[in-house]
């Protein structure tokens, strides 16, 4: 294929080329990292070389500490995310389709969506303490209001004709909500849950900032004190990897749950 086609907007490129370019990025990144560290351009306490990060990983696995941190973080992330989703999805669907619900909730969501969650941490500590509840609350607050707004938008976009059509088929208002509005929102809801799951991971370190004794965020913060850049990088890679994994899982669930709607 000639270069002009490949560099035109919205043109398909061959799968092989796509894979090759992706690999090239990964290899370049590793090469740059190796050059900076093994080449002696950056000191090890600023940036650990690749093999030290790998060794830190193996050490962590052998001692079982890495899995313990992963487990602690997963519990926090998944609990906070699940709690937020369970409340935000139905509430968001109603908010997007019932102006009464929107009128009640909009002052709160409009205000909360711009608040950095970290600003609320002092209050959270006062109110829910420094245990795991506080960490879950951070994830919850970080995702709940975003989910509410996104899901409400999905619900608002459900075609009015689809609703009207259901009425002319004999549906009452309750049936319109449960048998038409909810399923019609499902693909959009799943897509937005996937996006907000990604955001939940970004709150992890903030959540484990205070009084944690396990978790990947804690592992990173703790390593900073001793300038263990290998452990810091390990933590970053593990979070990135787990983020990718949850994203894949969401893709699989969507395909399995919603075979009738092609994913984007």
């Amino acid at each position, binding site marked *: 294929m000639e270069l002009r086609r490949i560099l035109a907007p919205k043109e398909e490129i061959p799968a092989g080329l796509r894979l090759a370019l992706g690999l090239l990025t990964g290899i370049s990144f590793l090469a740059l990292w190796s050059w900076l560290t093994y080449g002696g351009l950056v000191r090890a306490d600023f940036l650990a070389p690749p093999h030290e990060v790998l060794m830190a990983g193996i050490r962590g696995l052998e001692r079982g500490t890495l899995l313990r941190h992963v487990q602690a973080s997963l519990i926090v992330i998944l609990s906070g995310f699940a709690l937020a989703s369970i409340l935000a999805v139905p509430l968001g669907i109603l908010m997007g389709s019932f102006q009464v619900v929107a009128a009640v909730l909009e002052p709160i969501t409009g205000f909360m969506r711009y608040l950095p969650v970290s600003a609320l941490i002092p209050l959270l500590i006062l109110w829910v303490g420094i245990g795991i509840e506080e960490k879950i609350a951070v994830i919850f607050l970080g995702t709940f209001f975003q989910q509410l707004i996104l899901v409400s938008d999905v619900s608002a976009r459900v*075609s009015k*004709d*689809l609703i*009207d*059509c*259901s*009425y*002319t*088929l*004999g*549906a009452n208002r309750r*049936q319109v909500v449960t*048998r*038409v509005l909810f*399923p*019609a929102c*499902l693909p959009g809801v799943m897509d937005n849950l996937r996006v907000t799951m990604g955001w939940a991971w970004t709150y992890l370190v903030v959540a484990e900032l205070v009084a944690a004794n396990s978790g990947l965020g804690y592992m990173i913060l703790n390593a900073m004190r001793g300038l263990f850049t290998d452990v810091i990088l390990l933590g970053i890679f593990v979070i990135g990897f787990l983020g990718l994994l949850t994203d894949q899982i969401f893709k699989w669930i969507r395909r399995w749950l*919603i*075979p*009738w*709607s*092609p994913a984007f």
Partner: protein
Amino acid sequence: MTTAKLVVDRVRMAFPRRGKEPVVALEEISLTVAEEEFVVIVGPSGCGKSTLLRLVAGLVEPSAGRILLDGREIDGPSADRGMVFQSYTLFPWLTVRRNVEFGLSLRGVAAAERQRVARRFITEVGLEGFEDAYPEQLSGGMRQRTALARALANDPEILLMDEPFGALDSQTRQLMQELLLRIWEHAHKTVLFITHDIDEAILLADRVLVMTARPGRIKKELAIGLPRPRDISLLTVPAFMAYKREVLGLLHEEAVRAERSRNEVGGA
């Protein structure tokens, strides 16, 4: 004429606007549709013909006047007035079969009976073999066939059709018109059909009602005396052309009027 199935009695529809005069979509409109009659309303765009159909469906309430079905004033939407929309309104999460069964399942009809009815109407609209397909996998014409089967499976007293073939290409549209003629000629449903396609109106209708530009009223009523069964070969018959000339003339006057009033509003 036999007894009136549907009576629209001096219905007026005005949509309020904030800080401005309300928009009068329909002004004192009256019409009747007889039992088993096929009535088509044509009108210039924006004349309120879709609003009229939504009023009959019970999806909106008139500002004044009454709408009666079988002598009873309508109150909100109900399964006795089935509707086929111009936009694709199939439920994307349901297969063709489940879409057609939808109205029956809302009423708690047993599965065996639902399947029997669905099979009958799927066959009637020519979709055998596509029972388990999702709407996403269907062409526009097949989607509207399913929508028609879904409306018919509910056995409504009157079928309301709001430009149901408006989004289809002209070949598919003709196929759908012939399909609808075939179904109607042996099912004998009462139909109120809206379109801006003059050929479609004359081909399908027992009676064509021509609407004025906004605010919409009935300008003229034409009984179409073409023999049935009909098919699209009728489109070139002299009698058909005569009807077409008449409707074209009526609509042209209204289009000119609509254009002029738009310009006046724009200039004011």
